[in-house]
């Protein structure tokens, strides 16, 4: 046996390394360890400018592979109500961040003007309208839930809501569905 090894074919000598091999750098897309992170966003406001933060954050979270649930309650119900969702408004009243005299906001037609302007600015940067945004969120795997109490108060049912809303559920149901989630209240 020993002789057999001694006469085996010589191994090609290793070539001298001219430079240390570059380390392999691959971004961590989290595929090896699927994220347990879960996000719940409660949308409680129906103003145009208060609808977008929840939608944008939901969209961003979904793009990061995070399970995302949105719960629409009280005034936020307008965001998913078919007859209202395309007609959310922005008012200068009570909003000092416009840096314009508050009295201006109370002038007739000013809310329409401010709304028109904001919608234009939103469209200009390629951000979708509210109904389109809801579609995008659902296509990205997001879940839309409507608040039972709001539906009862406003005498609305599933037929009145965006087609992708998965159900009208109680606050307790939502809390149950979002166990372990990080919660954002808007």
């Amino acid at each position, binding site marked *: 046996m020993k002789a057999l090894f001694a006469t085996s074919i010589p191994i090609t000598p290793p070539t001298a390394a001219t430079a240390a091999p*570059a380390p392999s750098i691959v971004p*961590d*897309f989290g595929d090896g360890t699927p994220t347990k992170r879960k996000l719940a966003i409660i949308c409680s406001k129906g103003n145009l400018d208060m609808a977008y933060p929840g939608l944008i954050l939901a969209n961003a979270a979904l793009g990061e*592979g995070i399970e995302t649930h949105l719960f629409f309650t009280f005034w936020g119900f307008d965001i998913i109500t078919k007859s209202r969702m395309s007609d959310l408004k922005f008012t200068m009243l009570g909003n000092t961040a416009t840096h314009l005299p508050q009295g201006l906001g109370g002038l007739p037609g000013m809310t329409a003007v401010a709304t028109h302007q904001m919608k234009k600015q939103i469209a200009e940067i390629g*951000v979708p309208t509210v109904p389109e945004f809801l579609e995008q969120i659902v296509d990205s795997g997001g879940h839309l839930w409507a608040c039972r109490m709001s539906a009862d108060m406003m005498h609305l049912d599933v037929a009145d809501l965006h087609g992708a809303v998965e159900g009208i559920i109680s606050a307790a149901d939502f809390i149950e569905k979002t166990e372990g989630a990080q919660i954002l209240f808007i």
Partner: protein
Amino acid sequence: MPVTTVGTTAVHVDAEGFLTDYDEWDEQLGADLAARIGIDLTDAHWRAIRFLRTDYVEQGETATLRRVSMLAGIPIKDLFTLFPGKPAKKMAYIAGLPKPHGCV
């Protein structure tokens, strides 16, 4: 800027591994990058990747998911199927571009 070897090519990347030099990329490299993150590129993948490459030259920044969907006509749902988990970042990585910075 760190250098890493993809296939047989040495390329410049940022700290996370995204290519930093547009011209160091070619389609073979794209296929190698995809393979590293477990994606076997089909024609459907290539449509998105090629759109990203062309759009980057015109816009100077990496297209967001919405932009790819709207302008390349690929439904968002499909992008999530083709590049599971974090589609916008995965597409950018394979296309040899920086991560997209747009919000939507």
